[in-house]
């Protein structure tokens, strides 16, 4: 049985920041990730981030992962284990993990769950044809492994992920046939949209995919327009040839461990699905379990990093660790978070959190 003060599950931006903050308070930290590298979603992100300087705006996601990794290495009281998949939480407060073919048992005084989110899919006829991917898979293939998914991509979804992945595909030399968006307006940031528009990619707002077609692999799709009541308008069909259809219709929190642990969960559509009920300090209804990042509501890396800081600080404080700066660090992080969410782009998150915290 491995013993530690705080075990953190997931080494994305939220988990890395939680580890750094908890360790800076003097806590012993065990940081686990099922991947072979740290950074979570960040390692796929070759574009420059928004947000504020304090959360590394203007730096590319992948470089942020590197910066945080270096910081983690500076702390002797952080033990990082990669390739460790956490499997379950047991009533005696023990978690198990699969690590190098072995089963690990871990007992920590506090857990911080920072497992991120999983992609949603979209039902349409023939959506099981080879060549139809989630945006995360396309990004992983292209940006992590250097493998192009195909030659001509039809993107479904104009949120930031759909827009950014379209841009990254073009940078990799793949043609983007267009972006299909069911809503009347573009969902992601308009500066991202302008970037792909001036590269000549059309955005079909108020359109959805009617069906994909192809013999043994996808060869294209038929899209059609939606009216104000989101009903398809017959006669508006367009045929778009593509050897890849990339589905980017949103993420949903990866909450299995929290369900299993018995944390109180609530469905909040603005946050991406079922999310854990927690307080301002990121503590769930189980006093030994904290959360941070997309698992507690699908948002942005900038917010995930600040939530990680708060969870790390508060979990460490709850087991008696202290530094003179705790109050100041905590209140600064809380106000950063409020600021990030204060504008029109944060409206959805704010309304979701009202139902939760």
């Amino acid at each position, binding site marked *: 049985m491995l013993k530690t003060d705080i075990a953190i599950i997931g080494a994305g931006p939220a988990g890395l920041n939680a580890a750094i903050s908890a360790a800076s308070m003097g806590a012993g930290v065990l940081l686990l990730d099922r991947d072979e590298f740290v950074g979570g979603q960040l390692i796929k992100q070759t574009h420059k981030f928004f947000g504020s300087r304090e959360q590394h705006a203007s730096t590319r996601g992948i470089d942020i992962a590197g910066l945080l990794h270096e910081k983690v290495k500076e702390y002797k009281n952080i033990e990082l284990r990669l390739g460790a998949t956490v499997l379950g939480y047991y009533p005696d407060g023990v978690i198990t993990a699969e690590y190098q073919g072995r089963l690990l048992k871990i007992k920590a005084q506090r857990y911080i769950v920072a497992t991120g989110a999983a992609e949603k899919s979209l039902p349409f006829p023939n959506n099981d044809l080879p060549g139809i991917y989630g945006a995360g898979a396309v990004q992983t293939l292209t940006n992590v492994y250097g493998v192009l998914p195909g030659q001509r991509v039809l993107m479904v979804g104009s949120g930031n992920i759909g827009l950014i992945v379209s841009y990254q595909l073009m940078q990799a030399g793949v043609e983007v046939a267009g972006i299909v968006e069911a809503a009347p307006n573009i969902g992601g940031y308009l500066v991202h949209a302008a970037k792909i528009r001036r590269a000549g*990619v059309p955005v079909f707002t108020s359109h959805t995919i009617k069906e994909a077609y192809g013999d043994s692999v996808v060869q294209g799709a038929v899209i059609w327009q939606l009216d104000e009541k989101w009903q398809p308008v017959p006669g508006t069909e367009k045929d778009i040839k593509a050897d890849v259809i990339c589905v980017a219709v949103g993420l949903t929190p990866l909450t299995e461990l929290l369900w299993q642990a018995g944390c109180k969960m609530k469905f909040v559509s603005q946050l991406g699905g079922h999310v854990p009920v927690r307080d301002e300090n990121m503590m769930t209804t189980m006093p030994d379990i904290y959360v941070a990042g997309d698992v507690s509501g699908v948002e942005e890396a900038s917010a995930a990093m600040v939530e990680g800081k708060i969870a790390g600080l508060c979990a460490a404080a709850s087991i008696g660790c202290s530094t003179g700066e705790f109050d100041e660090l905590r209140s600064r992080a809380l106000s950063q978070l409020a*600021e990030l969410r204060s504008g029109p782009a944060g409206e959805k998150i704010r309304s979701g959190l009202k139902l939760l915290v």
Partner: protein
Amino acid sequence: MLIKTGVPTEGDIQRVTPSPERMAGGPVAVIECFQKIPCNPCYLSCKQGAIEEFKDINDLPGIDHGKCTGCGICIANCPGLAIFVVDYTYSDNEGLVKIPYEYLPVPEVNSRVAALNREGQEIGTARVVKVQRIKGQERTPVIWLAVPRDLVMSVRNIRVGGQQ
């Protein structure tokens, strides 16, 4: 409309275009950022103090074109790639447009490239005058393009060589 098409309207562009007097005075930044998002590197990167301090990180950037020298540092620091520098004083019949460009290949100096507008349509030819690498943002080269004067406010992208 921008939110439906992703392309700013003429009205949008007019609101952020420097005055004719300022345009006649040499290089100046045009910030094509029209939506409140939590982002402020443009302000933080401008050494001239031309971009107003953000009271709230969601503010739209405000620029004092009088203080702007057109240095282009903000171009490479804006994660939205939404800032351009225009210069009507470049030569008698050509103006200069500086754009951020994150595709490969990076064009060669003195080469001719297709000049594209905000919808990606080819509207003319541009000559590459310089490829500027801003410190700390070397992977977002700023390409200086000489274009016919009447296209200065329309050219916002290029197509290099055989790339589609």
